[in-house]
């Protein structure tokens, strides 16, 4: 018995570590590249650990754009974006999953259908719409689209449907209003999904590039991905500088994830036991 358990532990860690290596090797390569000088990028044989590591690439990144400012912009946008998404999507999902109303199926279908629109197509029309509303160059032009995130709605609907109706009925018998059921019964039960959604939404917003580029023409409103793109010249791709820039831009979001992880995990486990 103990031998068998030892064997399974060993197997578990072997597989888990192998997957971890697959996930991480590209980043090791990224760090290594960012520490190389231009001439060393194509040396033969390749240098896993740069022979003459240099911080030049990092220096270049910091010289070329106001780092703190862009990080601040990105943070502000991503945080508000995430909050609004969670609020609006969970409300809509609640209505779809737990309130019976006419046309519910059709409307949900409509929500889903919009996920299938290739964004490249609606880009120019949407730009024109934004321009007509007068939102161009406002942070809200990037943040407001978060009120409609069909992916999030869909994910929450799927989750809420797995929550047994008994919970809600019990609450209803106690005389709770629909809103109270939503807030005090539904939201806590969906905590794990909401946590997952928060991280993915934040990340998407953090990494979003083309839409902020179109909307925020004012340099002082520049987000991190836009600032990074200015590292790329017309004739010239400096891999080491790009890698350094990408690495720096990843640090905040990885930190946030590691920090949120604790709550994330609790949320998932709590949700698991209750559900």
């Amino acid at each position: 018995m103990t031998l068998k358990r030892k064997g399974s532990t060993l197997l578990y860690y072997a597989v888990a570590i192998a997957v971890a290596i697959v996930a991480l090797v590209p980043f090791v390569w990224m760090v290594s590249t960012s520490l190389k000088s231009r001439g060393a990028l194509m040396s033969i044989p390749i240098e896993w650990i740069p022979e003459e590591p240099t911080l030049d690439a990092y220096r270049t990144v910091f010289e070329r754009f106001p780092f703190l400012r862009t990080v601040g912009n990105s943070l502000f946008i991503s945080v508000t974006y995430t909050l609004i998404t969670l609020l609006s999507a969970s409300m809509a999902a609640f209505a779809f999953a737990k309130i019976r109303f006419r046309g519910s199926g059709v409307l949900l279908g409509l929500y889903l259908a919009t996920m299938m629109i290739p964004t490249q197509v609606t880009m120019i029309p949407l730009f024109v719409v934004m321009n007509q509303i007068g939102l161009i160059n406002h942070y809200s032009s990037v943040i407001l689209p978060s009120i409609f995130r069909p992916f999030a709605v869909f994910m929450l609907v799927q989750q809420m449907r797995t929550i047994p109706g008994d919970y809600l009925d019990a609450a209803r018998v106690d005389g709770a209003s629909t809103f109270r059921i939503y807030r005090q019964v539904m939201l806590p039960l969906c905590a794990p999904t909401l946590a997952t959604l928060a991280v993915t939404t934040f990340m998407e917003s953090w990494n979003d590039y083309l839409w902020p580029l179109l909307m925020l023409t004012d340099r002082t409103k520049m987000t991190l991905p836009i600032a990074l793109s200015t590292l790329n010249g017309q004739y010239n791709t400096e891999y080491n500088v790009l890698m350094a820039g990408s690495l720096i831009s990843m640090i905040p979001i990885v930190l946030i994830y590691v920090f949120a992880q604790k709550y994330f995990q609790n949320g998932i486990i709590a949700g698991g036991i209750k559900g």
Partner: protein
Amino acid sequence: MVPKTKRVKHRRSQEGLLHAFPFLLPSLLGLLVFSALPLVISAFISLTDWNGLDELLAPGMFQEHFVGLDNYKNIFASKEFWQVLRNTCYYIVLYIPLMLITSLAVAQLLAKKRRGVTVFRVIYYIPVLTSWVAASLIWKSVLSPQYGALNNLLALVGIEGPGWLLDETWAMPAIVLVSVWKDMGFFGLILLSGMVSINPSYYEAASLDGAGAWSKFFRITLPLMSPVIFYVLIVSLINAFQLFPQIMIMTDGGPNGATQVMVERIYKYGFRYYRMGYASAFSWILFVIIMICTFIQMKCQKRWVNYDT
């Protein structure tokens, strides 16, 4: 006259709408302004030969550029469209099963209450946290046949790696690999949230019956996770049809058109060749294709998706 029972039902569903409406209001507003309106505009554009430069709202724009259904006819008549559709489907056929298997494996690994599982959860998610731009750049350099990490690693075990992104046969599989690498943590975590919401008493009961790990996985875990798996399939299929940033950065459609896919063509026609009308028609076709596929998935879900545990 309507029978009494029916009328009661009707009234109840109207009341339901009244209850639901406030919850739906914000997202509905967003739907109209940020999605429906631009979509309708783009439908009009698809009937024109608009170049994407002239001011869209100028008076007389639509009449001046109207070409009827010509764009659609030209697309279906072109060899390119069918080739691009084939490439896109090739990607999907490779990507979806591979992604599902790896993310199930990731979820399974993370669902275990073992020491260090938190660390793995962070590590597996790091590729997801990376932007596609950064990820594509990294992989482009990792996959470089001569100077990249992968082939040099393969050489250590005596395998001569292919040209990956530079080889017509290997370019699309390479894109699939990168996409799976990037997405496995994301879908893995979604699957995990479904996996941990399964009531442990099912497993306890199965254990008492003497079921093994595999049989528990197939008889309890998979069926009870089916709504989440369904979600993952729908979302990943839609995403797969819209595959784009990795292509633009890693191959730009090459080598020799081997990785030209729908959205890449749409982007090129709209923003590089200045044929926005044609591009809009192209994307409407893509839109309809995705809708049909999703519709089929929805219809089939009754057969295997298991709501209400």
